[in-house]
């Protein structure tokens, strides 16, 4: 059977479209608030913490002058932002070819493992070990993304099922290697040895793990943008996504576009893995939580698979996640609230008919009338 084409992942414009995103966000946050109010004794304070908890605090005192506090917390927003941006790009590329590849999770796990293993095995100065680790991560992501692509074009294997299965395999493989082969015997828990300092990305913010990889985010987004807008392969990917029958009729290499869209997505999941191992965690624990790939899905959907918008969506989402941690620490609401909000955002975004078709026109009329009224007054 063929998977239903993901209608909502195509970028599209129009007034109803422009209204949909803010409406979906507002509706999801409101519904989340209602659920919070049902169980919390202080829902208002909890929600305020969720929305503003990630903000650095700036205050002034006569003795100390200007002081910025809670920068560490803001640092974790940026750390999350980096991972989520790469994961968002990893899902956005196959989405543009209408491939529902959900394999970012597995690609990221294996890429992190590859980067970690290469860093530990190679050692040496940074100009040797860092590129090698990055190359290993990207190559691993590419290869693990290529598999479901090949299975799809060769054997019509549904990519949702194969990528989900490959995720399960990847997580088990990751745990197997760390438990059996990469384990640091001196540590009290199952974890790899700490990576050598030369293998770590240079730090940008003290007391956080924000590194130079931050600069790779705009570069990666621009690269995807260029790939899609300016290259033959990018054109083929978009054509296959927008009108597969047309692309086939026009003699385009459809199978190549399908496979490469999934494999190229894997490269960015690989970068997310590199960020986990060589910047954020600096040694890999065996119980790294699966499921980050789904957060990448939210980011790609929020950005409507538009590479330019992916960093923005990732920042919004990273903001919310860090705020949720603050909320959990200071109120009686647990951070899983964000999962609920995330789910509601997805539901409201993909609901095509959520905004009644007449609403934008009516709003515009209202806007013009009030504008005209203000001028007359």
């Amino acid at each position, binding site marked *: 059977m063929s998977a239903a084409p993901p*209608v909502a992942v195509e970028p599209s414009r129009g007034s109803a479209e422009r209204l949909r995103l803010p409406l979906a966000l507002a509706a999801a946050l409101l519904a989340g608030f209602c659920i919070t109010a049902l169980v919390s004794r202080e829902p208002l304070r909890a929600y305020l913490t969720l929305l503003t908890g990630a903000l650095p605090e700036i205050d002034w005192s006569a003795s100390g002058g200007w002081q910025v506090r809670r920068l560490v917390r803001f640092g974790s927003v940026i750390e999350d932002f980096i991972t989520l941006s790469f994961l968002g790009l990893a899902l956005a590329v196959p989405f543009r070819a209408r491939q529902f590849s959900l394999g970012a999770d597995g690609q990221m796990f294996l890429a992190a493992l590859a980067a970690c293993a290469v860093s530990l095995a190679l050692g040496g100065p940074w100009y040797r070990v860092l590129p090698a680790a990055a190359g290993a991560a990207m190559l691993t992501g590419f290869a693990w993304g290529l598999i479901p692509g090949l*299975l799809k074009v060769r054997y*019509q294997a549904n990519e949702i*099922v194969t990528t989900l*299965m490959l995720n399960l395999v990847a997580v088990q493989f990751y745990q197997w290697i760390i*438990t059996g082969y990469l384990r640091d015997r001196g540590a009290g828990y199952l974890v790899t040895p700490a990576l050598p300092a030369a293998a770590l990305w240079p730090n940008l913010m003290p007391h956080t793990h924000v590194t130079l990889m931050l600069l790779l985010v705009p570069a990666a987004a621009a690269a995807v943008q260029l790939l899609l807008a300016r290259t033959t392969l990018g054109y083929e990917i978009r054509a296959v996504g927008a009108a597969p029958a047309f692309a086939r009729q026009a003699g385009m290499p459809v199978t190549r576009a399908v496979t490469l869209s999934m494999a190229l997505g894997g490269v960015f999941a690989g970068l997310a893995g590199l960020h986990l191992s060589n910047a954020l965690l600096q040694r890999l624990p065996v119980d790294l939580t699966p499921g980050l790939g789904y957060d990448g899905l939210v980011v790609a959907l929020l950005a409507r698979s538009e590479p330019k918008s992916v960093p923005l969506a990732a920042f919004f989402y990273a903001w919310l996640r860090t705020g949720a941690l603050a909320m959990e620490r200071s109120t009686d609401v*647990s951070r899983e609230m964000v999962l609920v909000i995330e*789910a509601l955002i997805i539901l409201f975004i*993909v609901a095509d008919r959520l905004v009644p078709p007449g609403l934008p026109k009516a709003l515009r009329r209202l806007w013009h009338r009030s504008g005209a009224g203000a001028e007359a007054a």
Partner: protein
Amino acid sequence: MSAVAMPMAAMGVTVLVAVLRNATPIIFAALGGLISDLAGSINVALEGLMLIAAFFGVIVSVHAAQWFPGLAPWMLPWLGCLAGLAMALVLAAVLALFHLELGADLIVAGIAINLLAAGLTVFLLVAIVGDKGSTAGLNSPSLPSLRMPGLAGLPLLDLLFNGEDGRGQHVLIYAALAGVAAVALFLSRTRWGTWIRAVGENRDAALAAGIPVKRMQYTALLLSGLLAGLGGIYLSMGYLTLFQANMTAGRGFLALAAIFLGRRRPAGTFAAAVLFGATASMAAWLGARHIDTQLVYMLPPLVTIAALVVAGARRRRS
């Protein structure tokens, strides 16, 4: 029977029962997924539907004693079971509503439902129980096991039906086996079953033939919610007697794979689900023999992928 064959046969029976225990949640979810898949609506939300039913089954059966003090104790787990199924139905209805009325993409919406269930269960777990991991402190009941009387003279059958402790097998294991037959009959022999398959085969033709297409799609998605819910109930009120955060652990996705592996037929889907149950049993068995469990847990997904490849290759040759 010789002195050697008897213990061998007894071991075989024990293994069979263990496999069925592991397979039951996957059988339920896969049967549900099969119905909606045949209606042309792939249900990726099986995982979340199981999870929400498992959670509310435990919570309601524990709290029902305070809400309805007059109730006999044996009724409490059944009340919880009903509540869990109702919540799974509600969630399936939300999915159907967003897909059929609001035009949401079914796969994306299904993934959202999974996230919603994962978040909501932990969120409510903290709010109600005050624990982030499980309801271990609640002492929740199990649904009953059924004991077959009059098997004392037939040791193998007694072992099969009543188990080593003589308490019988869980009622939902029987229900899962009956469910396979019921779903097969429903799909092939009833009018609604035929209509559901017609809608999945060719939506426009079904519409032209006067079949209420939308009602059939709703029915299929709601039925999949009900069956996946039963799988979840079995997990928290049979397989274990507590709720754990994310206790479905990918079984919903395995169920999805079982449908593909079983070539979208009830018997095939059942066989695939039993195969996955067997791998889970084997993982436990090998784990006890110092073989890395991670390697064993790679088997079900790898088997699934291999089966999809074989099916694809066969399709290409014909």
